[in-house]
C-alpha cells in the first residue's frame, strides 16, 4: 500500500467524446476545476481519450510526471474501464489506481437541455472521482483455473451449430437439450426461405454429425438446474430426466411403440396427429432413441402394463431409471434456448383454438410437410378438405404497441418471409388457389429476400395492407374477414376456407428461471440481453456466458448459425486461456474487531466467508476464489470489522462528500 502514504500524484483527463460531451458540457471549465483539486498534478482535455492519441497522452504523463493515480471523465466505466486499466498496466502501474467519472451517459446525454447545470454536475462527478482516486490502493488480481470445456444449452440449429464449431476445434462440448431429441424448431419446418431447401434435409446431416463427433456429448431430456463458479470454472448441475429407455441399447426399431396401448396428441405435429406414450419425436431424432412420456405411460401412472419392456428384444426399456443430477465442469457456457411461437389463442378475436380452420404458421409447416399429419397434402384441420381460398394475417403477437396478451412490441423479423414462403408454397401446390396476405408492412431485408417476395407477387398472391379486427366463423367452417385495404381505401369483405396466423417469436418457456440460474439480464422484450447492443452481440454481462440464436432476439436460420459461430469463437477463446485473472474486490477482515458473530457467513450468497476457530477465538476468514465481491458482508458486519477492497466505506464517504461540496 506504499502508494497511499505520500500525497498522491493524480492526472485528470476530461474527454470531449467529439461533441457527445463537449456539445453540452463546458469541458475546459471542468478541466480547470479539476486542476485546482488537491493532489492533481495535471488535468487535460482530449478530443477522444480512448483513441490512440488520447491513450498515449496518459501514458506519457504517467512516465514524465510520475503519476500514481489516473482519473478519466468520459463515457460509462461499463464501456471503457478495461481499456484504461490496460493503459495503466502497460505503463507499469497498478490497474486499480484508475477511477472514471461518467459524464456522458449520466450527464451530457441526459442533460442536453441545460449546459450550465450539466457542467456543474460534471465538475461534481470529477471531484468525487478524484476524492475516491486519492484513497485507492493497488490490488493484485487472483488467478482462477480454466476448464477447457464448453456447455451449450439448447439444441436447436443455433446450439447444434455452436456445438459443431466447438467440437471441430477439438473442444469437449456438452449439448444440453430439454426435449428427447435435438433439432429445435427447424426440425419442424418443411422448407426454408428464401431458397426453399427442405429443412430436415439440411439439418439432419448436422444432427448426425453432432452424434458422431467424439468431442460432443449430447445430454438430451435434460435441464440446467444450478450454476456455480465463474468464467473458466463453472460447475453446472444438469438434471437428466428419466427416459426409461437405455440410449445405448435402443436402436430405434419402434417395436415398442407399435404395441404401446396409450395414444397421446403428438406435439411435434402440433397436436394434429397422435403418438404413443413411448415415442421418438421424429424419425431423424438424435439421439435416435425412444423415450417414455411418464405423464401418460400406463405403467408409470397406473402401475400395470410394461408391454414395451416385453416386446423390446434388446432389453432397452428400463423402468427403474430415475431422474439424476450430474455435475459438469466447464469453462464457458453458450445459451441457445431459442424461442416459443406466440400463443395465438391469447388473441380471441382471431378464433385460434375455437375455429378449427384457423391455424398458426407453425401448424402450417407441419401440414405442408411430407412427414406431417397429412403427408404433405394441403388439407384444413376442420374437415380435411383442400382449402381453395387462404388468408394469412401478419404480426399476430408482434408489433403490439401495448404488449397486450403477452404480445411483443417488437417486430419478430422472420414472419413476413415465413408468410411469403408459405403463400408461395400454396401457389406451387395449387396454382388455382386464391391467397391473400393481410399485412402491416412487408419487411424483406435479407440476402435474396426481396427477390423472393417479388416472385410471390408475380404468382398472383394478393397483398392487402390492413390488420383485420377479427375473424368470424361461418357455416361450413369457412371464415370471414372484413378489413380495410389502406392502399386502395376500400373495405374488403371476404370469405376464406382457412386462415393462417403469422405468429410472432416470443422468449422460450422457462427463460425467466434459466436467466436467474445463470444470473443473466433480460431486455424489455423478455429475450436475453447481450453484452452490448452493437459491439458485444453474442456476449452477456457475465464473463464466460455467451448467446446464440433466437434466445437473444428473433432471427432466421442463417443469422442464428452466424451468431452460433461467433459465440463458439469467443467460448473457444476463453477456453484457450491458461488462467483467468479475477478482480480482487473481496473483504479484508480486521481480526481485532471481528467478534465471530457469523453474520457475514450467514449472509454471503456464495459461502465465501467462513468463521473459523483461531487461537484468538472465532474469527471470519475470506475464501478468495469463491468471493464475487458483492460487498454484502462488508455492509452487514455487526462489528464493522470488514473493509471491502476497492469499495471501502472510506472511499464511498469521500465520494459522497465531494459530490455534495459546494463548488
Amino acid at each position, binding site marked *: 500500500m506504499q502508494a497511499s502514504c505520500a500525497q498522491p500524484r493524480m492526472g485528470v483527463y476530461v474527454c470531449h467524446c467529439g461533441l457527445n460531451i463537449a456539445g453540452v458540457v463546458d469541458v475546459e471549465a471542468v478541466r480547470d476545476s479539476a486542476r485546482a483539486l488537491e493532489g492533481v498534478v495535471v488535468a487535460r482535455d482530449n478530443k477522444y481519450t480512448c483513441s490512440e492519441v488520447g491513450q498515449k497522452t496518459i501514458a506519457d504523463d504517467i512516465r514524465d510526471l510520475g503519476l500514481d493515480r489516473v482519473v478519466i471523465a468520459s463515457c*460509462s*466505466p*461499463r464501456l471503457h474501464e478495461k481499456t484504461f486499466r490496460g493503459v495503466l498496466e502497460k505503463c507499469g502501474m497498478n490497474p486499480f489506481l484508475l477511477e472514471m467519472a*461518467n459524464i*456522458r*451517459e*449520466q*450527464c451530457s*446525454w*441526459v*442533460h*442536453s*437541455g*441545460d449546459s450550465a*447545470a*450539466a457542467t*456543474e*454536475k460534471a465538475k*461534481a*462527478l470529477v471531484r*468525487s472521482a478524484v476524492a475516491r482516486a486519492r484513497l485507492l490502493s493497488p490490488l493484485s488480481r487472483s488467478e482462477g483455473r480454466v476448464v477447457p470445456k464448453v456447455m451449450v444449452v439448447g439444441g436447436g440449429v443455433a446450439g447444434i451449430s455452436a456445438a459443431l464449431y466447438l467440437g471441430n476445434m477439438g473442444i469437449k462440448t456438452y449439448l444440453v437439450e430439454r426435449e428427447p431429441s435435438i433439432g429445435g424448431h427447424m426440425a419442424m419446418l418443411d422448407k426454408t426461405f428464401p431458397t426453399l431447401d427442405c429443412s430436415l434435409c439440411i439439418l439432419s446431416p448436422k444432427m448426425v454429425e453432432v452424434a458422431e463427433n467424439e468431442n460432443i456429448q449430447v445430454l438430451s431430456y435434460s435441464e440446467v438446474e444450478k450454476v456455480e463458479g465463474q468464467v473458466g470454472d463453472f460447475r453446472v448441475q444438469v438434471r437428466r430426466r428419466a427416459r426409461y429407455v437405455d440410449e445405448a441399447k435402443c436402436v430405434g426399431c419402434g417395436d415398442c411403440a407399435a404395441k404401446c396401448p396409450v395414444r397421446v396428441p403428438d406435439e411435434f405435429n402440433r397436436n394434429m396427429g397422435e403418438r404413443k406414450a413411448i415415442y421418438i419425436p421424429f424419425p431423424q431424432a438424435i439421439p435416435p432413441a425412444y423415450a417414455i412420456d411418464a405423464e401418460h405411460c400406463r405403467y408409470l401412472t397406473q402401475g400395470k402394463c410394461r408391454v414395451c419392456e416385453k416386446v423390446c428384444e434388446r432389453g432397452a426399456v428400463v423402468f427403474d431409471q430415475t431422474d439424476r443430477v450430474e455435475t459438469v465442469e466447464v469453462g464457458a457456457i453458450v445459451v441457445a434456448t431459442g424461442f416459443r411461437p406466440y400463443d395465438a389463442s391469447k388473441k380471441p378475436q382471431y378464433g385460434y383454438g375455437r375455429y378449427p380452420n384457423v391455424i398458426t404458421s407453425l401448424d402450417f409447416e407441419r401440414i405442408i410437410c411430407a412427414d406431417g399429419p397429412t403427408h404433405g397434402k394441403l388439407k384444413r384441420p376442420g374437415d380435411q378438405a383442400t382449402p381453395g381460398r387462404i388468408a394469412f394475417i401478419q404480426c399476430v403477437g408482434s408489433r403490439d404497441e401495448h404488449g397486450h396478451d403477452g404480445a411483443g412490441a417488437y417486430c419478430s423479423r422472420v414472419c413476413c418471409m415465413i408468410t411469403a414462403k408459405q403463400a408461395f408454397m400454396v401457389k406451387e401446390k395449387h396454382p388455382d388457389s386464391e391467397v391473400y396476405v393481410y399485412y402491416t408492412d412487408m419487411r424483406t431485408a435479407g440476402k435474396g429476400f426481396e427477390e423472393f417476395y417479388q416472385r410471390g407477387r408475380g404468382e398472383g398472391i394478393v397483398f392487402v395492407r390492413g390488420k383485420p379486427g377479427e375473424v368470424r366463423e361461418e357455416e361450413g367452417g369457412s371464415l370471414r374477414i372484413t378489413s380495410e385495404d389502406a392502399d386502395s381505401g376500400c373495405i374488403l369483405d371476404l370469405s376464406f376456407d382457412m386462415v393462417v396466423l403469422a405468429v410472432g417469436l416470443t422468449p422460450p418457456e422457462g427463460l425467466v428461471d434459466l436467466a*436467474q440460474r445463470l*444470473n443473466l*439480464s*433480460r*431486455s*424489455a422484450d423478455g429475450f436475453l*440481453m447481450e453484452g452490448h447492443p452493437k459491439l458485444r452481440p453474442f456476449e452477456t*454481462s457475465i464473463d464466460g456466458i455467451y448467446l446464440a440464436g433466437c434466445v437473444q432476439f428473433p432471427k432466421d436460420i442463417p443469422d442464428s448459425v452466424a451468431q452460433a459461430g461467433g459465440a463458439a469463437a469467443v467460448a473457444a477463446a476463453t477456453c484457450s486461456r491458461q488462467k483467468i485473472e479475477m478482480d480482487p*474486490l473481496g473483504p479484508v477482515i480486521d481480526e481485532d474487531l471481528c*467478534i465471530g*458473530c457469523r*453474520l457475514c457467513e*450467514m*449472509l454471503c*450468497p*456464495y459461502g465465501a466467508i467462513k468463521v473459523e476457530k483461531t487461537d484468538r477465538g472465532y474469527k471470519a476468514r475470506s475464501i478468495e476464489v469463491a468471493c*464475487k*465481491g*458483492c*460487498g*454484502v458482508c*462488508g*455492509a*452487514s*458486519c*455487526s*462489528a*464493522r470489522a470488514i473493509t*471491502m477492497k476497492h*469499495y471501502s*466505506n472510506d472511499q*464511498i*464517504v469521500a*465520494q*459522497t*462528500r465531494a*459530490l*455534495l461540496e459546494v463548488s
Partner: protein
Amino acid sequence: MADLAVGGRVAGQGQGQSEEGFEPEVVGFLCNWCSYAGADLAGTSRLAYPTNLRVIRVMCSGRVDPEIMLEPFLDGADGVMVLGCHPGDCHYLSGNYQAEQRVRTIWMVLDHLGIDRERLYLDWVSAAEGARFADMVSEFVARVRTLGPAGGGPASREGLSRGEFAFRAEVARRVAGGERFRWLVGRNKALSEEGNVYGEKVSPHKAAALMQSVIADECVRAAIEVLAGEAPVSVRDIASRLGISAQLVLEQAAYLKRRGLIELYDVSGRSPRYVRAGARA
C-alpha cells in the same frame, strides 16, 4: 427533540412548502449490473431527467451499508436513492434483499427521529429500464422538492433547523453503525423465516416490535454519545434536550459508561455530567 423516546412526527412543524429556488441535492447509490446499466441506457436513449441526481456506483445494492445510506444527509443531501436489481434478478443472488431489509429499518429509525422517511428512496431498475429510471429520478426529485430542504426549518416538511437536522442525522448514522442494530438488521428476515438459535420462529410483528425497542434504546444512546462528544454535558440537560426523563438518560448513560464509551466528568448541581471517553486527556 421532543419525539425521540416516543417516535412519530414533531407537532407544529413546517408546512413543507418549497423554498424559492430550492434545488434538491440527491445522491444515488446504483448497483453496477442493473440500475447503473439502466441509468446508462437512459443516456444512450437520450432520455432527459433532472440534473439534481449524482450517482455513486457500487457493485451491488447489498454493498450499501446502512451508515452509507445516511452519510449524504450529514453532508447536505436532501434525498438519497438506493437502486438495485429487481427481486430475483440480483447479480449476486440476494444482495437486493439485504438492501431492502436495511432501508426498511432505516425508515423506522428516521420515523423515530422525526426525519421524513421519503427522503430515503429504494427501488429496483433493470438494465433494460432506461425510461423507467429517468421517470423515477424525475419523480423523486419532484418529491424531495415538496419535502423542502433537509434542515430547512419552516420551509421543510420536518420543520427542523439545519443544526437539528444534522444532529438527528448524526444520531441515525451512529445507530446504523451499532452492533446490536446491525445484527438485528442482518438477521431480521431469517428470524421470521428460520427462527432464532432455539429454532423459534419470530412473527414479523414481533420482530418489528423488537426492532422498534432496539431503535428506541439505540437512539437515546447515540444521542448521548453525540451530545457528550464535544464537551461535558449534564444528565438534566440531555433529558431536556431529548424531551425524555432523566431516569431514562441515566440508565442509558450507565450502559455507555460500562461499555467505556463515555465517562463521568463531574457532578454539577446534583446532575452528573458525562463526556466522551478519553476526552478529558
